[in-house]
């Protein structure tokens, strides 16, 4: 039976790329209200369709695109979609969320999502045009950058309003850290899903919708959305609107948690030169917003002089740090150029920056030299070498490019010689721009994250940086903090809302939005339970694909090396305190000491069937 609640389109496309044929499937009421949308639907799709042993690049891997029940409505910051597949980078639950205008178009076309199976024999792109959908030849697009692809698809379709999400040459070439780009600056960035598209010969997905989304209480939703819009214009989101996330650079610097030189240090001696404050004066050309967003956080840089003059790139804190201080680079022009290369060639800035920073450390330690690095002088701080290495990575050219294209985990395993110890990742996903040893609750959240090292799965860094806890210590109580953050973020990623709204919207507000849009009376408690259900289902997927307790640890550098920065000198994580915190996390989740959900917990969440065969206690 199809979904009767409003808000949802009520149907999605299932498409076999091998046969070039698809069908419309009804969204079930039970899936809608129990799994909400976005992340929840992705967890359901992957768990139900990707069995153990299905290789990420095989035709059997699923590539699922989902919106949420609020996309296409007046609710602010809801033009978001998420993409899911078994990750070629981690082997586990792969997903990423993007913004822009793509979700608005797909939902307005009358679809909650698209689930792709199979592999096309030739390059294609998929076009959803209201009720109609199908493949179009993309032979002429193969090899084009993401920005060129967007323009060419719109040109071919003769409609400037079409929104395009595409891969660049990196995704085509199965670079494991390849991403998906839409609206030039917005990305499904993490876990290498661009290369899953490449493996399916799917160059792009384009959407155009002229319909509207039917909601249960249009007046109520409008009124509440206007109130939320006002809150979004208030002081709690000023930091995003005016300064953007690069304002984090100097705050991280003061807290000694600004990763530099491949996470060897937590401060950068040139932090002022790459600060958000300086960037505002010297590089920011404009600030833009996603569809239906009153915040407008996207700070777009333009290089004004020098060899990279005219280069444009959207700059956020993570990209800035990973391709800046993490590589020892202090030049904003070069960092802007590097981000531009990532965005147009289609690779994740975080993964690229961390992988190159690892190679730089290998070079300085004499582990990589000469032909290994294709003759580059890959010292920390050599911006030109970083940019050239990035170009090689994106095209898998040369020995260095082929090595780095595998991501830092595989690259370090291939090189060996102890370099695995300073390969900074969890589950194969490169670590984000939060120091491991001086933000310890954050580290627990990164390491237990479903998709690998990630600050967006629990936001657990917040208690560290707000002084709620002693950030230089870990104990059992931190587990509950991560657990609650994950459940809450699971709902944000399922509705799907922008996380920048979290400071002005409570869980109760989210439940109210859901009720107004769908007509299904959702309480805050039910919503948080759904968050827990979704997270557990994603965890079950990881267990099916071989995850265990050993996958929930930060890399050796967190344990084995003391920080040397004044203010946090000597900081490191001890195995004992981490084990205690991890035990606390499993306990809060109702999981065994091996990180396996207990039968009673799964029953409480309505996931009894999923627990079968997992050996739950």
């Amino acid at each position, binding site marked *: 039976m199809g979904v009767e609640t409003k808000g949802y389109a009520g149907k999605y496309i299932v498409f076999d790329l091998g046969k070039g044929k698809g069908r419309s499937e009804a969204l079930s009421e039970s899936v809608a209200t129990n799994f909400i949308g976005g992340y929840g639907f992705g967890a359901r799709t992957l768990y139900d369709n990707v069995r153990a042993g299905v290789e990420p690049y095989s035709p059997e891997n699923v590539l699922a695109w989902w919106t949420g029940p609020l996309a296409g409505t007046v609710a602010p910051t809801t033009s978001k979609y998420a993409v899911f597949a078994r990750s070629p980078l981690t082997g586990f639950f792969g997903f990423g969320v993007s913004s822009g205008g793509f979700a608005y178009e797909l939902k307005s076309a009358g679809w909650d999502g698209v689930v792709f199976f199979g592999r096309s024999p030739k390059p294609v792109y998929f076009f959803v045009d209201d009720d109609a959908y199908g493949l179009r030849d993309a032979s002429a697009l193969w090899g084009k950058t993401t920005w060129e692809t967007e323009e060419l698809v719109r040109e071919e379709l003769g409609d400037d309003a079409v929104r395009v999400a595409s891969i660049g040459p990196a995704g085509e070439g199965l670079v494991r850290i390849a991403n998906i780009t839409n609206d030039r600056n917005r990305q499904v960035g993490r876990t290498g899903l661009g290369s899953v598209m490449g493996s399916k010969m799917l160059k792009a997905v384009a959407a155009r919708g002229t319909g509207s989304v039917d909601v249960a209480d249009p007046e109520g939703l409008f009124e509440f959305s206007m109130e939320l819009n006002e809150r979004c214009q208030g002081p709690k989101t000023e930091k995003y609107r005016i300064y953007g996330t690069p304002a*984090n650079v100097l705050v991280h610097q003061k807290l000694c948690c600004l990763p530099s030189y491949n996470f060897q240090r937590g401060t950068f001696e040139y932090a002022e030169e790459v600060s958000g404050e300086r960037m505002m004066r010297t590089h920011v050309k404009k600030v833009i917003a996603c569809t239906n967003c009153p915040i407008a*956080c996207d700070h777009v840089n333009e290089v004004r002089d020098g060899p990279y003059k005219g280069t444009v790139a959207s700059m956020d804190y993570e990209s800035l740090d990973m391709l800046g201080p993490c590589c020892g680079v202090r030049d904003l022009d070069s960092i802007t150029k590097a981000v531009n290369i990532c965005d147009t060639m289609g690779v994740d800035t975080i993964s690229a920056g961390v992988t190159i920073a690892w190679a730089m450390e290998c070079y300085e330690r004499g582990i990589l030299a000469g032909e290994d690095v294709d003759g580059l002088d890959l010292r920390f701080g050599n911006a030109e070498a970083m940019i050239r290495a990035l170009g090689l990575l994106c095209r898998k050219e040369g020995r260095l490019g082929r090595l780095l294209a595998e991501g830092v985990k595989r690259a370090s395993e291939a090189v060996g010689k102890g370099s695995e110890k300073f390969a900074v990742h969890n589950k194969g996903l490169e670590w984000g721009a939060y120091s491991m040893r001086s933000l310890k609750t954050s580290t627990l959240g990164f390491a237990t994250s479903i998709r690998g090292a990630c600050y967006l799965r629990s936001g657990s860094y917040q208690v560290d*940086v707000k*002084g709620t806890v002693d950030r230089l210590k870990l104990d059992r109580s931190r587990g509950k903090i991560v657990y609650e953050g994950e459940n809450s973020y699971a709902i944000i990623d399922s509705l799907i809302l922008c*996380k920048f709204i979290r400071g002005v919207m409570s869980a109760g507000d989210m439940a109210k939005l859901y009720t107004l849009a769908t007509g299904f009376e959702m309480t805050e408690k039910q919503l948080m339970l759904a968050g827990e259900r979704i997270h557990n289902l994603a965890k079950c997927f990881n267990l099916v694909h071989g995850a265990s307790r050993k996958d929930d640890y930060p890399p050796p550098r967190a344990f084995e090396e003391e920080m040397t920065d004044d203010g946090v000198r000597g900081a490191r994580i001890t195995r004992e305190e981490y084990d205690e915190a991890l035990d606390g996390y499993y306990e809060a989740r109702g999981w065994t000491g091996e990180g396996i959900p207990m039968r009673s917990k799964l029953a409480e969440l309505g996931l009894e069937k999923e627990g079968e065969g997992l050996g739950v206690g």
Partner: protein
Amino acid sequence: MADSRIEVDFIGPFRDICGCRNIGLDVDRELALPALIEEIASKFGSEFTERLGLSEGGYDGELATVIVNGKVVGGPKLGEVVLRPGDRVVFAPSLTGGG
């Protein structure tokens, strides 16, 4: 004579409000953190305290971060912090991540 001063750094909006990166205050005795904030506000305007969230029911770390000698001051503890000559205080926007 750095030891007779309290060094204050401004980041983000606080830098804009105060029009400088940092200031030094000569002190010869202990000074409560709220008193320091009051002194800065008297010099640079009430926007400073507003930006800290003090006019919105209190500093809670949502709008701003106050760091004393590398340690974040948790919301409820703002009034308890006593500064001494040689201390370093940072007023910064709250850390953000997401999207």
